[in-house]
C-alpha cells in the first residue's frame, strides 16, 4: 500500500481553461463579469436596463446561460449588441469550456466588456471559474435576507452584491440592512448597490460601479 500525494484542484481542467480565458481577456483589455443569482432574481432584467443605457457604439457583448430555451438571448438581443445563448441541457452552471466554445466565432479585439449571465443557481456556479475579472451576485428583496448566510460561498467570492427589486420593499418583509449586514459578515469588503430594474432607482450607482471597473482596466492597460 502506498499513499501518493496529489495536492491539486479537483477542477484543475476547468481552472486551466479559465486561466487561458483570463489571459486572453487581459490581452484584449476586456472586462469580463460573471453574474450569479437564484432563478428569478432579475439578472436578465438588470442586463436589459444596463444594455439600454449604453451607446450603440459601446463594445459590449453578452453570454447568457440557461438550462433550456433561447428566451433570454432574444430579450437581450433587442439592444443591438452581440448576444449568445448558452444552453446547458441540464447542467446547473456554466463552466470555462462553455465560455471558450461560445467565444470561438467572436473577435475578442472587438469587445471591451463581456457580461456573462450564469444559470440561475446560487450554489454550483460559485465553484466554476470562467476567467472573469469579477463575480457579481444578485439578490432580490423577494428572497430571504439570510441568503448570504445560507449560501456563503457565492457571497464570499463576489466583488459586488446587487440588491434588486427594491421597488417592492414596501410590500415584502425583507430587512435590507440585515441582508447587507449578513453579506458583510460573510465577505467584509463586498460592495453593495441597491437597484430596481422597474423604477430604475439605483441604476446610476450600478453603472458608476461598472464605469469604475472599466476605468481601472483602461488605466492598467495604458500603463503597460
Amino acid at each position: 500500500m502506498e499513499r501518493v500525494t496529489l495536492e491539486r484542484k479537483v477542477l484543475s481542467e476547468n481552472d486551466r481553461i479559465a486561466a487561458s480565458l483570463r489571459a486572453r481577456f487581459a490581452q484584449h483589455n476586456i472586462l469580463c463579469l460573471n453574474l450569479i443569482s437564484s432563478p428569478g432574481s432579475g439578472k436578465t432584467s438588470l442586463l436589459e436596463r444596463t444594455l439600454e443605457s449604453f451607446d450603440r457604439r459601446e463594445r459590449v457583448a453578452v453570454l447568457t446561460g440557461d438550462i433550456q430555451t433561447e428566451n433570454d438571448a432574444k430579450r437581450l438581443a433587442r439592444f443591438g449588441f452581440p448576444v449568445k445563448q448558452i444552453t446547458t441541457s441540464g447542467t446547473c452552471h456554466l463552466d470555462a469550456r462553455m465560455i471558450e466554445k461560445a467565444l470561438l466565432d467572436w473577435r475578442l479585439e472587438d469587445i471591451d466588456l463581456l457580461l456573462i449571465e450564469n444559470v440561475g443557481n446560487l450554489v454550483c456556479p460559485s465553484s466554476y471559474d470562467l476567467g472573469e475579472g469579477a463575480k457579481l451576485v444578485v439578490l432580490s428583496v423577494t428572497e430571504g435576507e439570510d441568503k448570504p448566510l445560507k449560501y456563503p460561498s457565492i457571497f464570499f467570492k463576489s466583488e459586488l452584491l446587487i440588491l434588486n427589486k427594491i421597488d417592492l420593499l414596501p410590500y415584502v418583509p425583507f430587512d435590507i440592512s440585515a441582508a447587507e449586514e449578513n453579506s458583510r459578515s460573510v465577505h467584509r469588503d463586498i460592495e453593495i448597490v441597491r437597484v430596481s430594474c422597474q423604477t430604475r432607482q439605483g441604476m446610476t450607482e450600478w453603472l458608476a460601479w461598472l464605469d469604475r471597473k472599466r476605468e481601472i482596466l483602461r488605466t492598467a492597460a495604458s500603463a503597460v
Partner: protein
Amino acid sequence: MHEMGIVNSVLDAIRAETRRFPGGHIYKVGVRIGELAGVNPDAMSFCFEALVRGTELEPLVLEIEYCPRRCQCLACGYLYTAAQEDSACPECGMRGSQFLGGDELDLAYLEVENGARNAGT
C-alpha cells in the same frame, strides 16, 4: 447539484493516474472540501458511489476531509475557525479577521495497492 460533475472530474483524474501504477489498484482517494466551496459532502459521496459502481475503478473509497473557514485575528494574530468573517476572536474578543482558508476543493491524495510506480513520474 453539481456534485456529479465534480465527482466526474475526480474520476477522470483517477483514471489518468491509474496509468502511473501498472499492476496496481487505486483503492482510496482523498478529497478536501472547504465549507465555502459550495460542495455538499453527502451529495458528493452519493454521486461517487453511483458513478464508481460497476466500473473498473471498483473497489474505490472516497475519503472527504471537510475544512472549516479559518481566520486569523487582525488584532492579536490568533488563528481560529469561524463561519463568519466578523466573528469575535475567541482569544481577544476583537471582531475582524483575515481569511486564511476554507474554500478548498482539492484532490489531496491516492492510496494504491501493489502498484509499481513508473520511473520518472
